[in-house]
């Protein structure tokens, strides 16, 4: 659907009495479709009400503007009716008169009888028939707000603007009103923008939650798509498998903002040994394949290269890794392979942030686990799963760890190869890896694609079985990479080189199977993965157990060094770009050659490889195929996309990289 309301590069600057300036909003850009419900959320004073007032026309943007149905807005009007925070009912008018004032002035071209009818209809809509002749001071807070909503809806605004509409109400009234508002908006296909600071309210009501960073210079920090199906029910919505992941994401964002509010400043760089910065904060997610990072720390590889003060930060989710990098809390991180590319493209409503991957840290290591329900139904192959889905009325829900993760892309590829549309026939939910097993156990999801130990954990606790490992899907696909910001590398080039070299040595160490039992002892510590050793052994040391009675040797299940594991090849990255476009997670970059050159820094890899005495040649940019045999030719990525039957419509765009 086309854009209905557009907030176009809005800045708001207040002139201070002292002659200074306060930049409240900076570069707010937002496109809203008709019938969409948008929430603006952020800490107090972040300018969300100011933004709402600008849309209402009660306040003027200093730069940029608002476009409604293709026409620029310059002043307030009844097409953008506001439900004010403190109701703003006229105290000298009864409920009926308050609504009638709005109807009579906004719909004055309609005959009087019709206007009366509209007033009465809206009194009934919010259930205030018994109070129609009462004055506002005779009403409770909830009733006043219902009058305000009725007044706003009665004049059929194109956009309904709500400024913390339920903030002053008690929990019970608020819940009832939220449901009423939701029903009314849905029945009338009302486009609405709501300012709130209540996370649950935002999730219940919104199609998208727009999170604003703290002022001054507040901007849109993140936009979260709330894909919980409608109609929603207040009690049911919290049981949705995505609810807590979404809620966590918003709360995480708000906490990050609070932290930056208390003047969070990254530690000052400590320079030593010819390195610009030896105090590094590196992020990771508790997974077996974070081993090289743990080894580099514990076995002294970082120190060997002069990185004396490295802190490893165990992150709750991939989203928090990406935010940590974005706001400079983390110097670098072990990331899922697609993440540096996705951040560079600006996926997920975030600004473009050029990232660098100078080495791949691990290959393989994932599996697809399905629940006991499917196991009991006899599902053993992809074809079985397809038949199971076709015979099943409900939609199966599968978990992945991040939109740009190989888990998401491979799971989708696998499903699509089996003629299962990952968006239509099943539902894919983003859930942080450590929460996968408990979510499966709770029954909110029916399976997932994730790294170890979370598959073996489910198998050994008899919660599910592994239907496929990525060894079968795409042998030696890039899994985890080292991701750092491009501007960080420009600032600390020697440090980056030392970091890459230390991790290279650690990777080599990890692929010596004699070291692996000791490595698992390290990983089992609570500050790293914190999982029992026996859940991490399959694939890492032992043959892999799928939970179907037999085990199979899986020598390459976790590949850290052998077979040029660490070379950040461009072909595989290009494949990732095609898949991000295939599922419309990102536009396909017209300047893909430039994007790959910028992100996958072979030159930096070669420099490090040479200095540790490794071969530095990139494997030839040759065509390859995944398990289904469809050839990917790195010279013709769009031709490859053509060949794939199930895909979403996607756009091809030039990605502006500074």
């Amino acid at each position, binding site marked *: 659907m086309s854009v209905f309301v557009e907030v176009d590069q809005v800045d708001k600057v207040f002139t201070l009495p002292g002659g200074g300036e306060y930049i409240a909003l900076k570069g707010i850009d937002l496109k809203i479709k008709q019938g969409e419900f948008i929430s603006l959320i952020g800490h107090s004073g972040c300018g969300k009400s100011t933004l709402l007032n600008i849309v209402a026309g009660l306040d003027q943007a200093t730069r940029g503007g608002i476009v409604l149905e293709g026409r620029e807005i310059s002043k307030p*009007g009844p097409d953008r009716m506001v439900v*004010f925070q403190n109701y703003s009912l006229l105290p000298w008018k009864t409920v009926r008169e308050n609504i009638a004032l709005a109807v009579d*002035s*906004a719909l004055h071209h309609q005959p009087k009888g019709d206007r009366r009818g509209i007033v009465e209809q809206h009194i009934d809509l919010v259930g205030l028939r018994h109070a129609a002749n009462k004055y506002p*001071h005779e009403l409770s807070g909830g009733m006043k707000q219902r009058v305000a909503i009725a007044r706003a809806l009665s004049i059929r605004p194109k956009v309904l603007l709500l400024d913390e509409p339920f903030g002053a109400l008690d929990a019970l009234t608020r819940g009832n009103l939220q449901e009423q508002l939701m029903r009314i908006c849905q029945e009338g296909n009302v486009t609405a923008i709501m300012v709130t600071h209540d996370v649950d309210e935002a999730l219940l009501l919104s199609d998208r939650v727009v999170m604003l960073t703290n002022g001054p210079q507040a901007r849109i920090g993140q936009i979260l798509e709330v894909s919980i199906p409608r109609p929603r029910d207040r009690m049911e919505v919290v049981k949705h498998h995505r609810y807590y992941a979404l809620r966590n994401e918003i709360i995480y964002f708000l906490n990050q903002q609070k932290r930056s509010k208390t003047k969070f400043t990254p530690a000052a760089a400590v320079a030593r040994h010819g390195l610009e910065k030896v105090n590094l904060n590196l992020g990771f997610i508790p997974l077996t394949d974070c081993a090289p990072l743990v080894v580099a720390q514990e076995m002294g590889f970082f120190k060997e290269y002069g990185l004396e003060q490295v802190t490893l930060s165990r992150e709750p989710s991939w989203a928090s890794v990406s935010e940590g990098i974005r706001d400079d809390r983390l110097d670098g991180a072990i990331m899922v392979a697609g993440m540096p590319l996705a951040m560079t493209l600006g996926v997920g409503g975030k600004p473009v942030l050029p990232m660098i991957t100078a080495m791949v840290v691990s290959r393989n290591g994932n599996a697809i686990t399905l629940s006991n329900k499917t196991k009991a139904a006899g599902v053993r192959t992809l074809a079985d799963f397809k038949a199971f889905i076709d015979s099943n009325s409900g939609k199966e829900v599968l978990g992945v760890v991040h939109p740009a993760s190989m888990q998401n892309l491979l799971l989708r590829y696998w499903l699509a190869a089996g003629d299962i549309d990952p968006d239509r026939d099943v539902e894919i939910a983003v859930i942080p890896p450590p929460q996968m097993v408990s979510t499966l156990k709770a029954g909110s999801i029916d399976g997932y694609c994730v790294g170890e130990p979370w598959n073996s954990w489910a198998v050994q606790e008899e919660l599910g079985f592994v239907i496929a490992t990525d060894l079968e899907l795409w042998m030696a696909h890039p899994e985890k990479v080292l991701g750092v910001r491009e501007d960080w590398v420009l600032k600390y080039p020697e440090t980056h080189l030392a970091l890459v070299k230390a991790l290279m040595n650690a990777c080599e160490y990890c692929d010596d199977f004699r070291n692996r039992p000791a490595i698992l002892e390290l990983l089992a510590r609570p500050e790293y993965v914190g999982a029992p050793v026996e859940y991490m052994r399959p694939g890492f040391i032992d043959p892999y157990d799928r939970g179907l009675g037999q085990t199979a040797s899986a020598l390459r299940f976790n590949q850290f060094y052998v077979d040029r594991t660490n070379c950040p090849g461009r072909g595989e990255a290009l494949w990732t770009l095609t898949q991000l476009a295939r599922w419309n997670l990102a536009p396909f970059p017209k300047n893909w050659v430039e994007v790959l050159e910028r992100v996958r820094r072979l030159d930096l890899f070669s420099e490090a490889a040479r200095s540790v005495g490794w071969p530095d040649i990139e494997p030839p940019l040759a065509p390859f195929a995944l398990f289904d045999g469809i050839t990917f030719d790195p010279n013709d990525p769009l031709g490859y996309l053509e060949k794939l039957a199930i895909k979403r419509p996607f756009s091809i765009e030039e990605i502006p990289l500074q």
Partner: protein
Amino acid sequence: MAQSSSRSKPSVNPLLSKFLEQLRKVGLSAAAILIFLILWQLFCMSPTATLPGPIQVLEDTWELIIDPFFDNGGTDVGLFWQILASLKRVAIGFSLSTIVGILVGMIIGSNRLIYDAIDPIFQVLRTVPPLAWLPISLAAFQDSQPSAIFVIFITAIWPIIINTAVGVQQVPQDYRNVALVLQLPQWKYFTEILFPATIPYIFTGLRIGVGLSWLAIVAAEMLIGGVGIGFFIWDAWNSSLISEIILALIYVGIVGLLLDRSVELIGNFFLKGQQK
């Protein structure tokens, strides 16, 4: 004890407890009046007293009290007619100042430029004592009747103007926003929002104004003569009828109180639905 028990069970009989509360108040003020009268009587018992005691006053003015409606022509009329004549002047002067004051207040309240220009002048003029206006109005009108009315007018108008202007300025931004969003035409904004929102302020101004006009009329009538409670007091002084002066003072006080309360009542009627 009784009080604390009634407070602990306010729901037993609210009407009864309200009645008792009223009774208590009336009783208390009656007692206070009684004590005051006794003290007054005691102070005036001494032979050197220059003022009559309450009993003396009652004896001297009994005829005036029991027959307020007599009319012997000229200025020799009953107290009812005297007060009525004063009230007539106040009614005319105060009505004029109400109309002019609200209009002027609305205009200067809604225009910052005019307000900033005129406000200092008003601040000076409003401190001029009512009687100081009398000579200039006598000079202007050449007649005592319109001069008295003008003094009432000029005395009452300042609080009305200033309160109205402040009221207009204090219309909450929320109400203005409602008008802006609904795109109310100018006249509708005035009748539906500006005027109703200003009413509490206007009535505050009117109450101060009516009190001031009653103060001014008594003083003005002393100077211009004719029928009126002010001249009645002056006449009594000239005839050394101190008791009559005291009676007149009590009447003036009561009428002033009634005026104040009636304006308040009218205000409450207009403020229906609004929380005070």
